[in-house]
């Protein structure tokens, strides 16, 4: 549905986006992840045809964003970083206007506007002026304008920024419910968001793609080292001696507070030492309060990828 090849954007001498390649299949939700200033907004603007790329191509539903700009614009819904709202319009009037300029036929318009108002939970505010709405509702109107014409491709630039936790959850549900019929690209720097909504992730850093994969794929790359954390009480010494004997255990760290201990066990490779650890703790007469396995998260992947890049940068420049 979306094919991006060698997409590059240069502002004067600075490269904002460099040689971007990725594809998004129909019905997929792609998370576009990166720290602030990584080039997310620039990429989205190029995909919507708002900005011409310096080099490379992007195709949406088979149309080139530069050569067939109008055809592309008919097929996308776009929510920019700041929702493009006319403050002096009512919610309903605004959505009618957007539907009109997006080319929704006069017969379909009332139905589409009603649908999108219901879908975005705006029914009680439909007659209100946009400038009187709270930020959360404005964001919903912003999403509503992006989907009012039922576009096959939806591009959302940080759709949950500035919302309170309840609103964030609502917006995520809304986005999730749009998948399947629509292809969605969503940019964010909030990691749990990607986890909850997206099928696949593109991580970009300093204008370059540093990883493209499913979330599980990314996490498993880092998952070759696991940690177990146990909260125990009682005499610790026998346990500490025995735990080193278990095959696969690499390191043991202990933090003690009086009779209570928190033991962190790091394993190497895919060794599953959980049952042995639990059995050993009971066997050595300790009381086990809590035990959990710490797996690599998207945060770890993200931090590793983006800091690696920074560390590599000076040598690349030299």
């Amino acid at each position, binding site marked *: 549905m979306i094919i991006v090849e060698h997409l590059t954007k240069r*502002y004067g001498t600075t490269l*904002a986006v460099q040689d971007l390649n990725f594809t998004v299949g129909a019905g997929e939700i792609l998370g576009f992840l990166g720290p602030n200033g990584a080039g997310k907004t620039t990429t989205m603007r190029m995909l*919507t*045809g*708002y*900005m*011409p790329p310096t080099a490379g191509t992007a195709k949406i539903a088979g149309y080139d964003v530069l050569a067939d700009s*109008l*055809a592309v*614009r*008919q097929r*996308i819904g*776009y929510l*920019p970083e*700041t*929702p*493009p*709202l*006319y*403050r*002096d*319009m009512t919610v309903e*009037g605004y959505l009618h*206007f*957007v539907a*009109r*300029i*997006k*080319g929704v036929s006069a017969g379909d318009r009332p139905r589409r506007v009603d649908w999108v108002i219901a879908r975005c939970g705006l029914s009680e505010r439909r007659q209100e002026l946009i400038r009187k709405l709270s930020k959360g509702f404005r964001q919903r109107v912003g999403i509503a*304008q992006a989907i009012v014409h039922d576009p096959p491709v939806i591009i959302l630039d940080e759709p949950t920024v500035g919302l309170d936790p309840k609103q964030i959850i609502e917006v995520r549900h809304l986005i999730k419910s749009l998948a399947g019929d629509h292809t969605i690209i969503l940019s964010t720097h909030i990691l749990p968001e990607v986890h909850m909504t997206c099928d696949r992730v593109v991580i970009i850093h300093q204008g370059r793609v540093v990883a493209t994969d499913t979330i599980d794929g990314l996490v498993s790359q880092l998952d070759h080292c696991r940690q177990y954390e146990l909260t125990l009480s009682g005499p610790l010494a026998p346990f500490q001696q025995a735990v080193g004997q278990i095959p696969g255990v690499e390191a043991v760290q202990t933090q003690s507070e009086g009779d209570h201990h928190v033991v962190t066990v790091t394993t190497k490779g895919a060794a599953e030492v959980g049952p042995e650890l639990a059995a050993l703790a009971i066997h050595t007469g300790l009381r086990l309060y809590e035990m959990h396995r710490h797996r690599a998260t998207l945060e770890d992947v993200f931090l590793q990828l983006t800091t690696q890049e920074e560390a590599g940068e000076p040598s690349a420049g030299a």
Partner: protein
Amino acid sequence: MRLLWANFVAIYRKELQGYFATSLNYGIAGVYWLLAGVFYIVVFNAVQTNVAAQDLQGQAGLAAPPVDVPAVILENYLGLLSSLSLFILPLLSMNLFAQERQQGTLELLATSPITTTTVALGKLAGVLTFFLTLLLPVMVYESVTLLQAEPPFSLGLILLGHGALVLLAAAILSLGLFISATTESTLLAAVGTFALILLLWILQAIADRISGAPAAILRHLSLLQNYTNLIQGSVSTASLVLFASYVILGVFLTVQWVDGLRFQRS
């Protein structure tokens, strides 16, 4: 073609709704109507006093040429009304694109299947319509008084004079549209458009004071000179073409500029 028209109407309607939803515009209309009314009374009385004085001189034996009183009133009044309008026009055009840029809605328009030319034309038509609604009451009281004249005065002349004013306004608003597209600040847009109008006045003053080919060129290109010609009743194709050219120039520059904005970093 039908789609283009539908888009044009969409933008036009949105602009009109915007004008009637903004309280500032009611203030502008109020001040405009108040001053226009006062000016009309002043001109009306002044011309009549003058003519009465000339009549007295005529009775004293000094033959004065016959005066078409309604025509003189209309011409003088339209001169004043154009000056008044020139003060108001920057306030009408300042929001056209500056506000879209400021509130980020330009990004919506630019990513919708609608051309920048359509947007610019829709906006220009919207602001011109608002200006026309400012003129309508003025035309009503002119007609009520001037059509009482004996021998009868033609309504066509009133319409022609105001048509000329609308052309002048269209040219200025079109350039104001462009100035509004160059900035995110509505204040700067208003100041810029006002500076442009001052420049037109200055060029006119220069043209009046010099002679030869440069003066002729200035006079041909001067919006105010061509406006004066029109309200004096001398309609020439050259004047009409000139006004149309300014309108097209403004729209063209606007479209170029707005499309060029996409190449800039924001």
